[in-house]
């Protein structure tokens, strides 16, 4: 589900803005670090979990407004270089502010420990993350499918010129899409922190997986991102049971297999 969250976020950005956001992994890490600091400041996990992704979203809006927008006319390479540079800046920023040494963030007391599910023993916090991520994916899906602004965003993915000709402020749409993608990366990072801990490079692996989700789904396809995220998560967990060394490689093997059969991705049409 976390893969799906990352994939949807990246898919929205890639679809609407037509930019491969290389800073997506670093923003994922930033969500975790914001959560850590907000818990230190506020002493409340739930409030921190709400505010941390919003902080990442705000930063995302600023990045789009001040960084990406001036480069829309400059061409694709410049935008790509910008997001790549931003990923380095955010990672180094984390090192400067929080130090390169890894840290642990505990789950809230209510979600510590495990529960016996009969067939297996499982941590309460992981169960919570599954449920929360599923709800967030559903929320993002409903927003994109059932609301007017969601429809505009989908239309933006399909045909930006047409949306613009209909009198919709396309720049505001770009800012909103980038910010929404960043919120989803931030919330995935914040939810991951108590499971994986924090370190400045924690987004590197996740960035690769998010791109695999987008490629597997079909460029800009939101339903595909959900399905691809789930597929990769299940494939990885199953392979880890029988052959742990291959649990990362299987992600790329699945992508290669799908793209060989369907170069446009599972749900892609272009």
């Amino acid at each position: 589900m976390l893969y799906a969250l990352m994939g949807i976020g990246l898919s929205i950005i890639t679809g609407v803005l037509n930019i491969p956001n290389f800073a997506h992994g670093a923003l994922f890490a930033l969500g975790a670090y914001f959560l850590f600091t907000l818990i230190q400041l506020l002493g409340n996990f739930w409030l921190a979990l709400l505010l941390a992704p919003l902080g990442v979203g705000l930063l995302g809006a600023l990045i789009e407004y001040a960084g990406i927008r001036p480069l829309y006319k400059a061409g694709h390479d410049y935008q790509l270089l910008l997001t790549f540079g931003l990923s380095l800046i955010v990672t180094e920023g984390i090192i400067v502010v929080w130090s390169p040494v890894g840290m642990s963030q505990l789950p809230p007391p209510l979600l510590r420990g495990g529960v016996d599910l009969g067939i297996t023993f499982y941590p309460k916090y992981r169960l919570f993350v599954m449920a929360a991520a599923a709800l967030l994916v559903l929320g993002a899906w409903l927003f994109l499918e059932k609301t007017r602004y969601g429809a505009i965003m989908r239309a933006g993915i399909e045909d930006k010129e047409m949306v613009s000709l209909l009198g919709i402020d396309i720049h505001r749409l770009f800012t909103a899409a980038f910010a929404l993608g960043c919120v989803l990366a931030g919330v995935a990072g914040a939810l991951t922190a108590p499971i994986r801990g924090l370190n400045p490079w924690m987004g590197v692996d996740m960035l690769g997986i998010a791109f695999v989700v987008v490629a597997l789904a079909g460029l800009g396809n939101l339903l595909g991102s959900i399905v691809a995220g789930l597929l990769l998560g299940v494939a990885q967990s199953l392979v880890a049971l029988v052959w742990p060394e291959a649990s990362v490689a299987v992600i790329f093997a699945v992508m290669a297999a799908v793209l060989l059969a369907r170069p446009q991705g599972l749900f892609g049409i272009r």
Partner: protein
Amino acid sequence: MSGVTRRDVLKLGGGAAAAGLGFPAVLRAQPKEVVMLGLWSFTGAFSDVGPVLDRGMKLALDERGMKVQGKPIKYITRDDETKAGSATRRAEEAVDSDGAKFIMGPWSSGVALAVSEVAKRKKVFHYFSGGTEDISGARCHRYSFQWAASPYTAAKTVVDTFMQANPKAKRWHLLVADYAFGWSVEKYVKEVGKGHGIEFVGADRHPLGEREFSNYVTKAAGNKPDVVVMINFGLDAVTGAREIFNFGLTPKIPLIMTWSSGVEELVQLAPEIRENLWVGSNFYYTADTPVAREFVKSYQAKFGNPPGYAPAAAYGMTRMTLAAMDKAKSTEVADVVKACEGLELDDLVGRMRVDPKTHQTLRPYFFMRCKKKDAMKGPMDFADIIATGSTPLPAEYAACKDIGSL
């Protein structure tokens, strides 16, 4: 016509020739540099350890004013990328191009075994610290030395001390890093465990750099052990300890980190995760020796936090190498190797002696118990040393039968 005669020209030529012939003699008279290579991981699975290893080695060299036996020391570093291929390539380049004669590192056991072969082939001095027993065991040779305690010494210290404190905890589940270091320590934990009647209810191996431990911990929980024992290192150990806590196993049951870096790992774990955590290590910063006290003081003054096992190992290996040069009164590799064999001194962790037959440094190993949050006197006050052990590897286990010739 000028006043220069044929005789003058000949005189000038002769003088120049004499100067030319004499020049190499002047060069030879200059104190030659002693090139020491720190082969550390700045990228790859142990990239977090490379910078602190570098710090430790620099501190040891700075103490000596970057000089040994009247010669200047040139310290060079190379990134081994935590890969055997890269490490051997970098080591060979440093030996061939930079004249490196003394190699410290690398950090990973598997990588170090490959570099040890380079040391043997190129006839350069090599000091390593890690968990594989092969450097001073089956693959021993005259040029490589081992600074870390023998995996047997470590296992004996950890298992004996833990069982003394918890005589009823006899169902052990092991979680082992699947490479040279993990295999060596696992072998002796099981061997020593037999003597205590320990039942090993499970032993799972995980790859180096594993980040998803939930499947392993699910299996561990299913075995209902009295104690979980990890034989892994660095980020693997941190991630594993975190997951074991998330599953609710700790602090209900104890967790042993058999071969830990100490400070570098413990600082990454919240105090709640460290509760009921027992830690074995080659160094802990409260070690009560004069050299350790001075080292910890200068390290803290320079870097703001106490040193863990990694910088201590780099510092310790460098000090031992320099002590061997002093004993040999030479910086020639063959002389230093001979001097290092049997070298005995009070150093970083106490009495240290290099076994001339195996090149294993015989030395104490530390076992700590982490403190509860309310017992900590400061953020870095992680643990108390509850035991040190220095039982050497019994002769019947020694795999180094003939260390060979230079």
